[in-house]
């Protein structure tokens, strides 16, 4: 089963290598990993999608927790959450078929962000399924280039993966008081 982990880490050099190295060395399968800083510039947040059964996930959590730079891990899979991914696709687009491609873009609420002589570059955001469907729809025209950000996710409602100083890092989530 696929799990989505929200991981808060210290924004230290090498922290990505520590996390990525841990996954490869222990044979855990990363589906995607997205990382960027949070509102606190000393803390980054990783969204890691990992494949595995309950036992594997338990080890993933515990081993991640052993990294000194990892502050907090939440497995948000079981919660209600919003997840998004962004894709940029450059597709073959002779003037004759541009209209057709723009219709496809409309269906997916994608935007055209660049126009070449023979190409169109489109931007689309959404969850996994939507991005996959969008990619499939453009395949017949000939995709020249494609880049995805990997998934980022956040719990719905007032639950959040936060961090207050002094609290031990624990599995699970916090409810706003």
């Amino acid at each position, binding site marked *: 089963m696929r799990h989505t982990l929200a991981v808060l*880490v*210290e924004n230290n*050099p*090498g922290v990505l*290598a*520590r996390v990525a*190295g841990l996954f490869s*060395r222990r044979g855990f399968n990363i589906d995607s990993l997205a990382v960027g800083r949070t509102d606190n510039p000393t803390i980054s947040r990783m969204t890691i999608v990992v494949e595995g059964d309950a*036992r594997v996930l*338990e*080890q993933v959590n*515990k*081993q991640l*927790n*052993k*990294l*000194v*730079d*990892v*502050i*907090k891990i939440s497995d948000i899979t079981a919660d209600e959450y919003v997840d998004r991914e962004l894709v940029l696709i450059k597709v073959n687009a002779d003037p004759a078929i541009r209209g057709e491609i723009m219709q496809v873009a409309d269906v997916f609420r994608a935007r055209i962000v660049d126009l070449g002589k023979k190409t169109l570059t489109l931007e689309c955001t959404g969850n996994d399924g939507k991005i996959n469907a969008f990619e499939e729809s453009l395949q017949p025209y000939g995709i020249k280039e494609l880049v995805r950000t990997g998934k980022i996710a956040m719990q719905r409602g007032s639950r959040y993966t936060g*961090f207050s*100083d*002094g609290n*031990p*890092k624990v599995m699970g989530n916090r409810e706003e008081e």
Partner: protein
Amino acid sequence: MKKTGAQVLVESLLAQGVDTIFGYPGGAALPIYDALYDADIKHYLTRHEQGAAHAADGYARASGKPGVCLATSGPGATNLVTGIANAYMDSIPMVAFTGQVATSLLGKDSFQEADITGITLPITKHNYMVKDVEELGQTIKEAFHIATTGRPGPVLVDVPKDVSSAVTEYEDSGPVHLPGYSPACKPDPQQVSRAVRAIEEAERPVIYAGGGVVNSGAHGELKALAEKMLMPVATTLMGLGGFPGDHPLSVGMLGMHGSKYANYAISECDLLVAVGVRFDDRVTGKLESFAPNARVIHIDIDPAEIGKNVRVDIPVVGDVKICLKEILEKLEPRVQSAWNGTINKWKKEYPLGYTENGRIKPQQVIQEICKITQGKARIATEVGQHQMWAAQYYTFSRPRSFISSGGLGTMGFGFPAAIGVQVACPGETVFDIAGDGSFQMNIQELATVVNYNLPVKVAILNNGYLGMVRQWQELFFNRRYSYTEMNNPEFSKVAEAYGAVGIKITSPSDIRPALEHALSVDRPVVMDFITDPEENVLPMVPPGEAINKMLG
């Protein structure tokens, strides 16, 4: 007051109570060595950086204090790697310092540059490169805190040359603040109660004790628990000495070369109390057949060890000493049962043994060393057959007296480790029980023991083979002894050339006199025991087999 980075480093070491370090100088470490020149710290110059790392490791194992080693950048740093990995696998507190090229030269393939923080990422508990002299003091404080708390382990601090020579206004920056690091200490009371109930309900309980008992200083609690509940105790290689080997409840070592009665006890028990262990494959053999009928209580400080290799019924996470104390307080004593009788019957039926044939038997040498030292020496070992014989035939009665590379299995560990042990325990008898293969992997440290007159006694069990590999070739590769025969130098003469005492022993009747002579001189001694070449370590669980299916 203004200080250089190197002076900050030295002061930080002193503040941590460090009075001894092991190292080897070089270009990028020059400012640090300059600060050490008149510092109140004793520095031991080994003859190879690997020797420094193992010596620091041995020092830590014998004393319980963190071991400290120091090397220069590039090759100096990479030569520490095996020693760091060794300490990591056995959870030994160690802080390794490396010089590094100046920050302006980093990443440019500069002379003697190696990405040592990258290289040691998977073999350290944590590591640092200090790029700002203002952060050096605090980083060192954090390094010692991480190395010595929770599950101990090695931490590396890489110090670029411009950082160690930079001048700063140094002030103590206060306590460490690591939001991502909070090791468990006290166990969950509910799990403690469950463990208590399980122990009281068990009919055939066994304790499986490991290095965690030694690390946390829980040998007293372990003994009290075993005696109160009359539970037999099997120890791992790392656990030897954590429970007295001559205690009536001891069943010795378990696992691949464990005693038959220890492995039978594990196979037949209905409750396995695993204390400070990690269910290593050399212990468990075939996992599905390991303690197949038992409920499992696993007591360990590292939550990631729970359920890593085996299913655990009752996890008790915390410092082993505290966990055992809390469990012990709540237990009602158990009375002698048929189970204790069965264990004693197995002990009588399947004793360890070997057949004498007029040649020197390696087991006999170990027994003689045990007798003459009354089981009170500190015994370091290398890795291989001699290591297993030392584990089987020396009776360890106190913790921190068996110093051996367990997890990584590092040949060449024992001799430099014995240096660290002798430094930590100056008045005590320290042996390195070695093989002819292993000893040659760090033989250059003979210069170190002579240099500092460390009276380490090396006992080489010389069979002219890489004995353990040869044994596997004999048993599993049809006696095809591919590259395991050793053409050795005359070890006694090598020892003498270095300025140590060398003795060659070829007949069983000379074992005792040689040991007596070795112990009578206050100098390093190398004893070269020419042993029966094709003696095997038995009993043995073939790899991948259940631990009660033993050869021999």
